[in-house]
């Protein structure tokens, strides 16, 4: 039961709202009463030192982690909770399954299904979760794999693809579900330097051509600066500073942000 949280956010709601969200692992508070709005079609990058709760934000939104307090709303509707008798109660599996279709995620380690081809990976969920016909799923998957530049690899298994190619399949797989929100969790961190560019190019084209709300955790500062509408700097479970990329990178107000950016940019 949640008091003081609205049952829904009405028609002009942001695409994502974290409202006083707290996440603890035992004694350790990873996120402390987080408030964060992401507007429709906005691209928000989350940066910060490791252990600052960046990835946890994405994992909570993907419902991979339960939250300890607060409410997350997606497209105006509560995600982590559901209304019952004019109150918000903890969401059940049926509610989560309904809401989860709005959200897709791309992982650091791709997590492709090794026993399926690139095409099979993309067709799997549209057919077996959304109930799409084989013909339709095939057409959509082929189109997406072509978009990520893998038209000639659609029948390959992941083991025969490079890291960059696997990650592009993973992006196509997530897009095949037509999510409204796409989460990128350090998607280039496990890649060899020479293939990072091809993955970033795909994300870049998504950002410009598709209407998609994107939330990404990244260590690619130049890239974050280039494509993001807004940067959030996380420090010890809180947003220490947020703003337009130019402001954050050129004129950070917070001492922690300055330290972090100078450390990261020096290393590059």
């Amino acid at each position, binding site marked *: 039961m949640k008091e003081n949280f609205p049952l829904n956010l009405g028609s002009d709601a942001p695409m994502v709202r974290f409202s006083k969200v707290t996440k603890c692992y035992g004694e350790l508070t990873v996120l402390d009463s987080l408030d964060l709005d992401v507007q429709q079609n906005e691209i928000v990058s989350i940066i910060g030192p490791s252990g600052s709760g960046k990835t946890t934000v994405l994992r909570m939104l*993907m*419902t*991979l982690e339960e939250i300890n307090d607060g409410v997350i709303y997606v497209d105006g509707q509560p995600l982590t909770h559901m209304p019952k008798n004019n109150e918000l109660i903890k969401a059940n599996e049926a509610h989560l*399954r309904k809401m*989860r*279709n709005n*959200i*897709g*995620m791309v*992982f650091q*380690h*791709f*997590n*492709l*299904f*090794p*026993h*399926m*081809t690139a095409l099979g990976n993309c067709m*799997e*969920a549209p057919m*077996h*979760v959304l109930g799409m016909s084989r013909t339709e799923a095939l057409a959509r998957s082929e189109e997406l794999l072509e978009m990520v530049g893998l038209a000639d690899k659609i029948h390959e*298994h*992941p*083991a*025969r693809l490079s890291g960059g190619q696997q990650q592009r399949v993973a992006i196509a*797989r*997530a897009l095949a*579900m037509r999510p409204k929100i796409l989460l990128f969790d350090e998607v280039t961190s496990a890649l060899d330097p020479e293939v990072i560019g091809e993955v970033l190019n795909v994300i870049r084209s998504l950002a410009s051509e598709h209407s998609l709300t994107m939330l990404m955790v990244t260590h690619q500062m130049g890239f974050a600066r280039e494509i993001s509408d807004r940067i959030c700097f996380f420090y010890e479970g809180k947003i220490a500073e947020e703003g337009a990329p130019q402001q954050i990178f050129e004129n950070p107000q917070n001492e922690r942000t300055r330290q972090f950016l100078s450390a990261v940019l020096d290393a590059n």
Partner: protein
Amino acid sequence: MQHYLEYLQAYGGRFVDGTLVTIQQTLLAALLAIFVAALFGMMRLSEKWLIRGTSIVYIEFFRGTSLLVQLYWIFFVLPLLGVTFDKFTAGFVAVGLNLGAYGAELVRGSIEAVPKGQYEACHALNMSYYKRMRRIILPQALLLMLPPWGNLLIELLKGTALVSLISVTDLMFEAKQINGTTYLSAESFGTALIIYYLMARVVVSPGMRAFERYWGKKMGRI
């Protein structure tokens, strides 16, 4: 050599009969073991403590006590409680339930060994538990558990020799009978030994390896 050929001429037919019964016992016990292993292995991973607990009790009981004692229980004690099996059924049921308990641990272990990222990908794609298990996790778990299952099935084959003790006329039973009337122990038990070895080495092991290769290919392993 001449002598052994004469021996085979006289008793070969009975060894064949016994071997056929052993094969039947092995196949039926293996089917039961696989079914039981899949069922209790997945129950072992349930979030509901009652289901998980039932599985743990089953696995601990059948792994923790002797197969021979279990066989005697099923054949001699259960009838006192009103459940009667004929000896053939009691034989493969005991072997299947016993080896199935070991198999359940293989199933559990291999499901747990599928990388966590696979579960997370299924979750992110909004797959139901059933779809996730059937289409993503179990096919990969099967590949991981095939090599130890090869071992287990050889154990199972050899374990069926115990059913001779409740007079199922399997290979071991025939060998004992022939030994009892001829006193040719070396020939009788030597022949049984060789037949068991050949079944394990020539049928079960290569069969399992072929299945492993087939499944590995299907799973995109290169």
